[in-house]
């Protein structure tokens, strides 16, 4: 049985002295090689977005009295003193576009 005890001691020694292998860039090497999460191609995601937007707009136009709303909005805007002139409408539209652009840019740049 001496041989068995010695072998058991040897195995015990082997387990107790197992060295810790320092990472030294091993983990970062693996993370760098990980496959990217599967994403739809840009053209397909744009197409899906376009189709659903068109469907949503179609349903909204079908359900709502669009012509009445447009004529009401137009008459309301033109009756306002500040928007009675064409240049003022142009300025308002420009500000709206600029604000929209800034918001879209902020969203795409992950700033918000």
């Amino acid at each position, binding site marked *: 049985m001496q041989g068995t005890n010695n072998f058991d001691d*040897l*195995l015990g020694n082997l387990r107790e002295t197992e060295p810790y292998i320092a990472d030294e860039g091993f*983990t*970062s090497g693996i993370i760098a090689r990980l496959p990217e*999460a599967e994403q739809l191609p840009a053209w397909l995601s744009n197409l899906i977005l376009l189709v659903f937007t068109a469907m949503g707009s179609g349903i909204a136009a079908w359900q709502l009295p669009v012509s009445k709303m447009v004529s009401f909005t137009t008459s309301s805007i033109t009756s306002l003193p500040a928007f009675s002139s064409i240049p003022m409408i142009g300025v308002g539209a420009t500000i709206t576009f600029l604000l929209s652009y800034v918001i879209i840019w902020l969203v795409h740049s992950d700033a918000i």
Partner: protein
Amino acid sequence: MEIDDQTLIERVLDKGDEHAFSELVKRYQSQLRYSLRQLTGWDEALADDLAQETFIKAYKSLKQFKGKAKFFTWLYRIAYNCFAAYYRSHKAELQLNDEDIPDPGFNPELASDLHRDFARALKAFEPQQRMALHLSFQRQLSHSEISEVMEIPLGTVKSYISRGQDKLKQQMISWQSGV
């Protein structure tokens, strides 16, 4: 407080959280790399390549991890498959290299030599038996756990270990008198 493996796995699966996966790699890299060094006759470069392949495969198939076994046990199954596949595809080349290996000297003063010598002694066995011996002697897995990791019958595991133990004792005889 350390976050448990299952929570980290869920973060990877739900949010694609690479940081959570890197925590898992950091947690097990040393043990897995050590095991693969043992299995490859202490070929550090090969062992690290296989460990890297193991973690990447684990990441890709993480959805298949059901949480029934420990994550580490599941990782070993992948590691064993990578190791076995490597040996299948490089069998002829490895047999030639083995013939060229000089008889390794040893120095009982240095613990690291014990690890290297044990790894070299394991090289005398076929990869499947080598893995079974390593999991039993180094990782102290039960025979049924080894059977589960390696997906081989329990009887085969028992046979591998009982026969392998006698041969290993002979090969490590110098160390046993030194222990």
